[in-house]
Each structure stands twice: as structure tokens, then as C-alpha cells.
């Protein structure tokens, strides 16, 4: 399945496997149910990622966070926005690893995914067939700035207003 970040298509270094052994390769994604076994079985230089459904308790994920190189969260349907909240909660509580949105999300949700803390997106083949790379990149840049603070947009409107106000006050003081 294709993998995209802000710059466009990228290589996916991870492969998926149910169980982890030496043959599984250096970067392996396992299902959430297998994660404990995988972490126990992995070789020293093996990187483990996990596929999460969108309804796991984020505390359970955080407990393993420093052993995980990658966390992906599923969009069973693009209308199901729980993955956005789960990503937010992981980031708010200090998760530093790579966050990937996967499944049925659509290009129009690309900027939302970044804003909520995802680094990359792995859309379904079916969606990508209709919405190729350029649509994702176009969607990412359509709205330059939004109003929410603390959603990864350094130029969010409230902060820009604050900056403009401070600049004005400074000019006034001089």
C-alpha cells in the first residue's frame, strides 16, 4: 500500500508479520494483539511497529511506547474520526515515535492527520487509485492556517494575531 508524508510518496521500510523471528526483516509491524510476543521475541536490532485499531486505551499503548518504533492507527471508515483523537492523546502524553494513519481515510483528511500528530499516511489502494499523490499534496496545502492552537500549526491564526499584537506593542514602546 502506498505511503505518503508531507513531501509525497515515500518508501515503506516496514513489513507486516504475525510473528517476529529473524526472517521477518529489520522493521516489522505486528498486530496489536501480538505486540507483547513480538517485543519478547525480537532480535536486538529489530524495530517493532504495531497496527492499532482506533479504540484501544491510549494508556496501554503509552506503556509500551519507548519500545515501539512505529504506531499505526486504523481508519475503518473515513467518517470514523476516533484515530484523530487517539493520535492526539498519544502525542499529548509524550509519544515521540512515528505515527502513521492507515486505512480508509481520504485525501481531504491529510492536513487533519498531520495536525493531530500523524507523520505519514498509508491509504487503502482503492482510495489511492482514485486519489493519487497530487491530490493528497494539494489537499495538504489548501487551507494555509486554521484557528486551533497546539495542533502543530506554528502559524495558526491565534498565534499570528498574538505576534501581530506584540509587534505593535513593541513598536509603541520604542
Amino acid at each position, binding site marked *: 500500500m502506498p505511503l505518503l508524508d508531507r513531501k509525497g510518496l515515500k518508501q515503506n521500510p516496514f513489513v507486516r508479520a504475525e510473528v517476529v523471528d529473524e526472517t521477518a526483516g529489520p522493521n516489522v509491524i505486528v498486530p496489536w494483539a501480538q505486540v507483547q510476543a513480538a517485543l519478547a521475541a525480537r532480535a536486538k536490532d529489530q524495530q517493532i511497529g504495531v497496527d492499532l485499531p482506533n*479504540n484501544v486505551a491510549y494508556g496501554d499503548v503509552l506503556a509500551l511506547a519507548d519500545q515501539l518504533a512505529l504506531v499505526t492507527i486504523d481508519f475503518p471508515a*473515513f*467518517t*470514523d*474520526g*476516533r484515530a*484523530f*483523537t*487517539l493520535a*492526539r*492523546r498519544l502525542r*499529548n*502524553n509524550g509519544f515521540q515515535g512515528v505515527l502513521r494513519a492507515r486505512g480508509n481515510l*481520504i*485525501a*481531504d*483528511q491529510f*492536513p*487533519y492527520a498531520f*495536525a*493531530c500528530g500523524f507523520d505519514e499516511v498509508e491509504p487503502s489502494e482503492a482510495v489511492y487509485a*482514485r*486519489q493519487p499523490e497530487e*491530490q493528497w499534496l*494539494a489537499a495538504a496545502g*489548501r*487551507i*494555509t*492556517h*486554521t*484557528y*486551533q*492552537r*497546539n*495542533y502543530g500549526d506554528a502559524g495558526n*491564526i*491565534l498565534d*499570528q*494575531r*498574538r505576534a501581530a*499584537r506584540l509587534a505593535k506593542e513593541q513598536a509603541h514602546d520604542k
Partner: protein
Amino acid sequence: MYRYDQFDERFVRERVAQFRAQVKRRLDGSLSDDEFKPLRLMNGLYLQLHAYMLRIAVPYGTLASRQLRQLALIADRYDRGYGHFTTRQNMQFNWAKLRDVPDILGLLADVEMHCIQTSGNCIRNVTADHFAGVAADELEDPRPTAELIRQWSSLHPEFSFLPRKFKIAVTGAEHDRAAVKVHDIGLRILRHPDTGETGYEVIVGGGLGRTPYVGKVVREFLPRRDLLAYLEAIVRVYNADGRRDNKFKARIKILVHEIGTEEFRRRVEEEFAQLDGPTINADPEEVARIAAYFAPPAYEKLPAKSNAYEAHRAANPAFATWADANVFPHRVPGYAALTISLKAIGEAPGDISSEQMRLVADLAEKYSFDELRVTHMQNVVLAHVRQADLFAVWQKLCEAGLATPNVGLITDIIACPGLDYCALATARSIPIAQALSKRFADQARQKEIGPLGIKISGCINACGHHHIGNIGILGLEKNGVENYQITLGGDATENAAIGGHLGPGIDAKDVPDAIERLVDVYLAQREDGEIFIDTVRRIGVTPFKEVFVAKTHAKSKEPENAVA
């Protein structure tokens, strides 16, 4: 009122371009119909029975004259020369064409308007007391808070794909004219009992629809500065934990009900405690920047009582009758707020022609500091009119057929579009409203009956808010025939109550008789000066039920009352 700065302006323009591209991608097949649907809904575009319907946001119901004129232009150019004000203070056009919508959005952006989040499973247009800045019982104008929330909720990256729609209302007055207890979140501005600081009472989980609930207080006092972070916590808990398995159980009211207010509060407070407020909340300076736009207009210093007004009242009984019903006291001496009823006898509630829009815009410009309000009762308010000017305004309204003197009376009926337009409807609601309005047309009788709110919905989704009507009418379908359930005792105010069923559903043609009988019970039983809802509260539903059930089973012999 609020004016866009360069950031708001760019945001709305970009949103128009975004939607234009989405329409194009729908037409070239990039977006499937299923994918396009939520995207167009989040831009207020519904597929109705006969055509697309475009719902335009009128944030917290405030409009400037130039904006209403632009709506008139859109009505003429892209619709059939009229628009429809909704129970959520928005405007709907019922005959828009998909290919025209991006251009309509462009025209709206020209006057600082949009359709953002007037539909869809996201945070909807925020509503507020239509007498904001006018009413004497107001502690603080709710509109700056509503505007702050409007901006915060616009294209929210996390909360645009919620389990279901999400509605927020704000009031700053003692008497609740914004129905905050039947919203997903209701905010009541209040003073802390000990410190005197102003903040918010936060009410969550109210709502109508098929399972009506009065909201629960989740936070008795929220300091003003914490507003956005607290809202974020509530909506996050809802987004994560709200039900998605059943559309009819997906509103936040069901979550609150199923896990209980205590547990809901615990989850929200836990989430809130994790948040770094200062990185989320708006600066006090930003709040002050918004509030400055809602500063009172430059009122003249006038005597509390206008002699000219009193003289016109004395000389002209029709004017006095209108003023009694439609004029609301203003806290500034010599001024009044007047409600223009869009409930002319026999017309569809909330409809307004482009010509009427222009006239109302002119009146607002000349007599009311260029500002109008849309009410959730589907009427329009001129908020700051000098009492001495009321007569001149009334005369102009008379010429335009806009001087119906029935605000708050039995013919000031709320009705959703129903089966005449709405794809979800199970029955018609507009013809029921029209029949009732004709039945009670007599002015003296309306006055005799006094304040009484009838609300009509064309299906269980309850857009006509029938549950909180003093008399509620719900149109259903039974064996292919429209069938109407009547409820009694609903109340939208600070005494919020959900109406109780009176008995089995009745045919359309029997509705006017049935309502008349309920009114007769009230007239026979009321004590001195008692309004309808108070009589219902005092004597209970039973006396009404007895009459209703007894007569419903007797065959109606008055075919001339049939609803055409």
C-alpha cells in the same frame, strides 16, 4: 458586530476554493458519492427531495444589512426569490444547483459569510440569545463567546468526523432564550458566587430528536480563560467514547445517559487535567479583541418614555396591538427591540422573500444601527430601534406584509420544512402550521390566549423542536397516511421540560380541532394572569388528556377543516 480580519478573510476564501476543488473532484470521479457526501454536508449542502438545499451560517443569528442584501441577491439569482430562516438561526435556500454552489460561496465570502459546518457530524453553527446586548436580564453579551467558539470549531482537525452532529448554544442572561439545556453543550455565563468573577456553567448532553434529554451540569463554574481547553476535553471524550454503532444513539446525550453524569464528568475532568491550557486557550487579549466588536452602538440619550410613541399607540389600536406583541423592552432608555414576525397567517414559517429581505435590511440600516438578528423562533429582530421610530417602522412593515402582531402567541409557530422539502420527513409540517395559523387567526382571540408556543416537526429528528413546544406536534407515518402525535408541557426556557404524550396520533385534518380543545381546557381552568404553560404545570396533563382522548375517538365531522 464581528468583522473579519485578514486571517478570517483568507481562511474563508481558501475554504471556497477548497470546496470548488471538491466539487470538481466529485464530478471527475476522484471522490465517490459516499466520500463527497460528508464533505458537502460540512459545507451546508444537503440533497433534499427535489433539489439541493444550501444552508448558510448566520453565526449566533447576527446579520448586517449588507449581508441580508447579499442573501436577497442570492435568492434572486440562484433560488426562487426567497429564503427560509431555520430554528438554528441559519438561512436555507431550497433550490440551489450543485454547479452554482462554489459561486454562491464566493458571494457569501464577499460579505464575510460562509456555510461552514451548518451540517455534518461536526461542531455546528453556534447559537446565542437573540436579545444579546438588549435584554435587561443580561450579565454579559454571549456573542463574543460564541464567536470565539465559531473560530475554534471551524475546520477543527480532530473534531470534523464526530459520531454525530454537535451543537453548542450560549446565553448570558437569566432568562434562557437560547435553549442551552437542550444542546450538546450549553454555556451559561454567570458570576462565581464567592469571587464575583465571570465564567461559565457548562451543561452537556441535552438534545431533542428521538430520545429527548435535558442537559446535565458537568461543571458549575468554569473560569473564562479555560473555555477552549475544556471544550476540547468534552469533545475529545465524546469523539473517543461516543457510540458509532447506531446513528440514533450516537449523540453525546446518549453517552452521558449511558455512563452517567458522574462518570462522564470524571472522564472530562481527567482529560482536561492533562491539557496544557495556556497552549490551547485564546489569550485574554484575543477574547477582548473579539468582544470589542460587540460593544454597544452609539445610543442617543433619550427619555425613558417616548411621547410620540405613546401618542401613536393611543391613536392607532392596530399599531398598539402589534407593539404589545412584537416589541421587547430595551435596557437603554428610549429604545426598543422589535421582532418582525415571519409567521404571516397562512404562510410557511420562516420564509422571507428577497424583496422583504431588502426592506428589512433598509430598516435595519436606517433605524437599528445596521444590525439584525435571526431568532430560533424563525423571526427577525431589529435590536435597537428608538421608540419614537417604531411607528414609522411599523408602517413600512405593514406595506410589505411583515407586520403580523403575533410574536410569542399561538400563531407564532415553529415548523421544520417537513415532507414539502425534507428527504427524511415522515409527514408534512408546513401545511399543519398554516392550518393552525388560520384557525387561530383572530387577533383578539390570540391575545386572549396569550403566550403559547406550538412547535411542529415532520419526523422524529425533531428539527421543529416539538418536544419543547408548550404544544408539540410530531408528524409520523402510519400505514402510508400522515399521523400526528401531540405532546403537551414542553418548555425551552431555563425551566426546560420535555412535553408528555397526550394519546394516540391523529389525522392531519383533526389537528386544528384537537389543539383548539386543549386551548379551551386552558381557558376554562386558568387562574388570573396565568399563561398556558403555567396552567399545564399546575393542573397537570390529565385534564388535557381526558379531553384529547375522548374526542379523538369520536369521528370528526368537519371535512372543511382538512389540511389542503
